[in-house]
């Protein structure tokens, strides 16, 4: 049954046991996530947060110890559930005896494509990914960036409804990244869901419209990108602010910065902004601008994972 969700997990968990039945290590702890079809979804987390294990459970490479996962409404452990999915793994090791075209042909065949369909599709994808002149070259001669693009072509071979990409721009130069991003944007325009697992926050911020952050195998934060980045507060700029008024408004602000011809206050909420404006106007100051400020994804990530605090504690101990 297709529920309009590309990915749906309920209490999905994975606990590894060390050899000889010793210590238990929880990689993913009861993760419940819903990824609507057609969105650009980014999964973030620090190293060891459980992102790759989560993706591998979706693709049945890792068996969950609890919960369930569905792909387009089908149990993820059914091979057929993976038919509408294209996957580019992190640290892939494509067999080097393949040519670019040969590799696409092999993985296309594994996806059940006919020889005729593969023969039509391969030149299309090589062209799309900028590898048209490299199809007959053995892939051991490919650069890292070319391998990533070929890997993306492989994931696209059977015209999937969803792409699961694990660090797709890893090792790719800025022009290559843009090329990959353009291709992905082209795809999402046709309704393909993209599930992006990356530690490159800027890439995720540029591309994704939904994001989830994992910490220690748990879902720490999830939502639309626009909502997560909004709401850090407001920048209020005023002129002709007397010292007395300035001191009063500073009590409402989280930060203040003197400007050449005025003062900039950083204020957290709209209520406090209104109180500050009232006080400034009563004190004879001129309001120059009120600008809502947004966070960067990095701010959100650091705040959510507590990595900034841990780093500071580490420095203090040092």
């Amino acid at each position, binding site marked *: 049954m297709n529920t309009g969700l590309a990915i749906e997990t309920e209490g999905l968990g994975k606990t590894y046991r060390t050899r000889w039945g010793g210590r238990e290590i929880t990689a993913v702890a009861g993760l419940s996530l819903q990824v609507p079809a057609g969105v650009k979804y980014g999964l973030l987390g620090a190293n060891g947060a459980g992102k790759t294990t989560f993706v*591998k459970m979706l*693709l049945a490479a890792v068996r969950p110890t609890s919960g369930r996962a569905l792909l387009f409404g089908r149990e993820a452990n059914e091979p057929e559930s993976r*038919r509408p999915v294209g996957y580019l793994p992190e640290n892939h*090791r494509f067999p080097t005896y393949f040519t670019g075209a040969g590799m696409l042909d*092999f993985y296309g065949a594994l996806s059940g494509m006919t020889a005729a369909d593969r023969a039509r599709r391969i030149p299309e994808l090589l062209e799309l990914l900028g590898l048209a002149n490299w199809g007959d070259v053995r892939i051991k001669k490919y650069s890292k960036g070319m391998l990533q693009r070929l890997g993306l072509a492989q994931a696209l071979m059977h*015209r999937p409804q969803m792409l699961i990409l694990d660090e797709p721009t890893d090792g790719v130069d800025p022009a290559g990244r843009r090329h990959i991003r353009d291709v992905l944007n082209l795809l999402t325009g046709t309704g393909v869901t993209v599930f992006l697992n990356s530690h490159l926050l800027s890439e995720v911020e540029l591309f994704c419209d939904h994001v989830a952050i994992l910490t220690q195998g748990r879902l720490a934060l999830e939502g639309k990108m626009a909502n997560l980045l909004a709401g850090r507060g407001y920048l209020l700029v005023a002129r002709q602010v007397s010292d007395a008024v300035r001191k009063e408004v500073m009590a409402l602000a989280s930060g203040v910065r003197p400007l050449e011809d005025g003062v900039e206050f950083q204020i957290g909420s709209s209520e406090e902004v209104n109180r500050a404006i009232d006080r400034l106007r009563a004190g004879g100051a001129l309001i120059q601008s009120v600008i809502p400020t947004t966070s960067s994804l990095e701010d959100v990530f650091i705040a959510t994972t507590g990595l900034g605090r841990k780093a500071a504690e580490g420095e203090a101990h040092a």
Partner: protein
Amino acid sequence: MSTQPTTQEAPLAAQTAAIGNGGLDSSQWRVFLALVLDTVQEARARWLFWGLFGLSTLLILFFLFVLKIDLVAGAVAIAGMPVEASRKIFNMEKFVRNSYMFIAVFLYVWGTFLAIFASAGLMPAVLEPGRIGLLLSKPVTRPMLLVGRYAGNLLVVTLNHAYLVTAIYIIIGLKTDIWHATFLYAIPVTVFLFAVLLTVVVFIGVVSESAALSLMVTVALVFISMLLASRKIVVNLLSSEWSRDLWQALYWMLPKAWDLGGAMRSLILGEPANWLDPVWTSALFGVFVFGAALYMFQKKDY
């Protein structure tokens, strides 16, 4: 960009409708064929594969050389004598048949060991991180992946051994003008033993992901099975009942490289052969070990 990717052209339901009706549909056969051909392609890309075929070719040339100087020249000289005299000295038919048998036994041992050496790395290679994950992400069952790999490996060895045995058969036949097709039993018997041993290579490969360990265990198993075959002598030397029972049990449980070779020898000589017991017990061992490999492969995380 000249083309744009589109969403699934064929509806998913239509694609999946063909699956699950029992048996393999055309899509699954395509997957199986792709896996087999991929294994063959990987074998070709490895020096071991070319070593296997190169050594076979060298062996063929060697036999050609030996036959030209000794066997053929000598045999023809003897055969050229008056019939009555030559019959007393030499039975040409028996001589050639025995030659066929010795060569077949040599090829049986040669072919089996070389095939094991050439195959040991093929299973662990596909289980490398970054490669197996991508394979598992395709709409392919794990048993299909393993069976396809196994079949591809077996195909490579079958082609090589068929090439080797057939070429030598043709050389001997042309030189002696005596054609004993029973010599060709060397192909199915050797391939059968290898098929059984390959299950061990696969099992150890799945469990340990180590080519070296697969090789060690499989070669050791061949030697153990040969040792166990001398049970009639050894059992009399063992002092306790349980050790005799253990020896007998191991003999019946493990593949029978020695007995299969003996059966092949008898078949080539045209003698009655006890081939049924070694075949079915070895086959049972292979089925059991391959089943265990499938079970382990199903359970593993990658």
